């Protein structure tokens, strides 16, 4: 058995790479050999041939969206994706040869640009699919995200119990820390791997400042972060038993913080793996519309 990990790029002995290279080579040879009386363009017999191949390729590449959702296929989805990637890449060459490298300020070049945007967003997707699953596995350390979330909840409970035994102020700080730990969020938050504690903190800090003005009952609240607040408390002098409990609490909270950032990173990796699809898919539908418009318009004014 082959010990090497099989990815979408080297699926089945890189079968689709070779098929794509073969297709590219045949197209290039035909293009080089073909010498029409006019500059190479989509209207020569080779132009029509390459155009037909490219158009069918686009439709076939679009079919991947349907194939992806069906679980009854006889061939593996990885094989399909491998073919999707390689033939999609080949499409760049075939389309350029079809157009005879002519571009202009018109629908046809717009179509080309759309198609290239789809393909290049796909390249980003390939990069993500090759890079992030490994990083995700490493980040999770063989736990699942729900494992980590459960552990965070448990840590929160333990921390509260511990803090309660120290001081009501510490309890309040821990409560706030729990509230501030917000995993997930909007698109940008997910992509930036922030656990949203900073954003929540900023809001609370503003409210805090307002409260301090009216009410001079300021405590260790000036420092924003839980651990700093607790170190302040430690420094302010407490008895040994409390100090011991506080240290334990800090351990708990550090563990929680690291878990929370791992979850945030997990969410980020997942978001990165998906975000390009939100460009790739809508643009690919625009490309299909452009393909249709291109073909119809060309024969409309034949």
């Amino acid at each position, binding site marked *: 058995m082959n010990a090497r990990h099989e990815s979408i790029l080297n699926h089945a002995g890189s079968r689709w790479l070779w098929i794509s290279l073969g297709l590219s080579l045949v197209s290039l040879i035909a293009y080089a050999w073909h010498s029409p*009386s*006019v*500059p190479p*363009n*989509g209207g020569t017999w080779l132009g029509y041939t390459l155009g037909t191949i490219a158009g069918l390729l686009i439709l076939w590449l679009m079919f991947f969206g349907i194939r992806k959702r069906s679980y009854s296929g006889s061939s593996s989805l990885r094989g399909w994706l491998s073919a999707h990637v390689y033939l999609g890449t080949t499409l760049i060459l075939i389309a350029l040869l079809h157009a005879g490298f*002519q571009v*202009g300020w*018109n*629908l*046809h070049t*717009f*179509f080309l640009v759309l198609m290239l945007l789809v393909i290049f967003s796909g390249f980003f997707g390939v990069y993500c699919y090759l890079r992030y699953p490994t990083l995700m596995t490493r980040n999770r350390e063989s736990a699942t*995200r729900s494992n980590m979330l459960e552990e965070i909840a448990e840590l929160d409970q333990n921390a*509260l*119990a511990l803090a*309660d035994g120290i001081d*009501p102020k510490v*309890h*309040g700080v821990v*409560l*706030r820390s*729990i*509230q501030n730990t917000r*995993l*997930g*969020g*909007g*698109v940008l938050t*997910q992509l930036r791997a922030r656990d*949203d504690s900073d954003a*929540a903190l900023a*809001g*609370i800090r503003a*409210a*805090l400042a*307002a*409260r301090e003005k009216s009410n001079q009952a300021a*405590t260790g609240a000036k420092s924003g972060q839980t651990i700093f607040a607790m170190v302040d408390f430690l420094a302010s002098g407490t008895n040994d038993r409390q100090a011991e409990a506080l240290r334990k609490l800090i351990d708990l909270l550090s563990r929680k913080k690291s878990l929370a950032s791992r979850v945030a990173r997990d*969410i980020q990796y*997942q*978001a990165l793996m*998906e975000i390009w*699809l*939100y460009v790739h*898919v*809508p*643009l690919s*539908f*625009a490309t299909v*519309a*452009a393909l249709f*418009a*291109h073909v*119809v*318009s*060309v*024969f*409309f*004014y*034949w």
Partner: protein
Amino acid sequence: MRWLIRRVLKQGKGAVSYEEDVHFGDVLSIGRAADQAIFLSDIRAALNHARVTSQGPGRYQVESLILAGIRVNGELTYATTVGAGATVEIASTRIVLLDPPRDFEAAVEISALDKAEQEAVKAKRAKPTSLKETWIGKRFPSWVLFLLVLVFGLLLPAATHFIPPLGRVIAHSGLPTTASWNPGPLDAAHRFFGDDCKQCHQTPFLTVRDDACTTCHTRMAAHADPARFNLPALGEARCGSCHQDHLGLDGMVNTDQSLCSDCHTDLKARTKDASQLADATDFATAHPEFRVRLPAWDAQGAFAPQLTRLTPGLKENSGLKFDHALHLKPDLNAPSGRRTLDCATCHVPDAGGLAMKPVNFETMCHDCHTLGFDTFAPDRQVPHAKVAEVVYMLDDYYAKRALEGGYTETSAPGFVQQRRRPGDQPLSQQETIEALSWARNKSRQVADSVFTGRACVTCHTVTRPSGPANVPGGGWQIAPVRVAGIWYGEARFTHAKHSTMNCNDCHKAAESKTATDLLIPDLANCRQCHAGESGGSKVASTCIACHRYHQSVTLQLKQL
């Protein structure tokens, strides 16, 4: 102040009971400490978690006493003033602030959230952890982009084709019209109407018809009559088969060799002898020897060149006597001194550069070849190229000299030789008759000499078929002359494109001693530099380099 505190107790199977309590005081304290008005046992509650102050019936101020803040109506806050119906959530407890019933100034209702409710609250507060849960999607943008591209890329431009007024509006608005379908720049001559696709593309989904072309190109010659020369390719050829626009300046003229060679092979057999043209498929390897238009004249004297295949030693009849070799010798003895002639002295290209201007006697020959006729009057010359004028002029000249006298030639009568002074007796009638008779004879003699002895005959063939009759011009005839002109009737040779060459590279004039030498170059001469489409080291020249496709002189495209 009297507070009503109502606790909601759930008893399973949806049954609910209430437990009411009264609290006295301005402030309702909430927390895990034993002294709190509302005691919460949950560890997530602080000892002194929050307080509620009544600010009048149904108005409450809610304040958090800890850093974490509290959730009022789902919003995290430190202090806020709310009306009745507001909900405060702390840990697993929900506190609803109520309108105070009679006898109370304030009221709250406390209920514990059961597991399902807690989960629901948790789920509600949880932020999306995958992109699927956020606002962005794929389906809606896909539809929008698909439809946008379809509408602006196809439907709107197509509509401008069918509704011209709409097209004008859209063109002004900057939205895409059918012009956005233009695949490439038009030929320069077509640009002035290029905005209107319909000028050429008259019917959607049909190729451009020839009618569209011949609307403007009215006098375009046909290639050949497809009815006579029954070749499928000829009958089916559209204008667009060769002339492809939208390819800038490169597309319009098809210069492919195959354009011609596909048909011009085995042509006689395939047209069933309708075509007598020799096959020609490649200039370097398969091209017949040239045919030249040899000068000839019909019975009426009109120029009627004979298309004759070039063969070695073929002679031409230009009607002139001329020794190129002699004229090209250096330092010729001319009246004005020594002169050296070259080709350009006599052969000057016409303005288009296609052919040579006709040789002009007055400007090119006359310097040396004067047309004087009388040594007693060296300045007098007969006019060139006007036979009758020459004879009339001689008659007039000698009549005048005879009557004036003073013409000292010995053959003349004495009174003609004698110079007359003013006051002398006029000639008698007898003398006048004699003088004019002499003059007539002298004129005839000189005309004979001019035509056959000295002047004309040097270069021209002079005949007098009708004898010395009294016809105007004395019956002299000069053979017609044609020196420069179009020699290759079936090709378009232009001197302008060969200006880098020397004349004698192609025309062996320096060795030609007689005008009947044909100095027009043959196929082999051209092949020194030119080859077919795959030219190799030579100039790649396809058929179109010399020949025209639209070459019929009798048939126009419109007539097909």
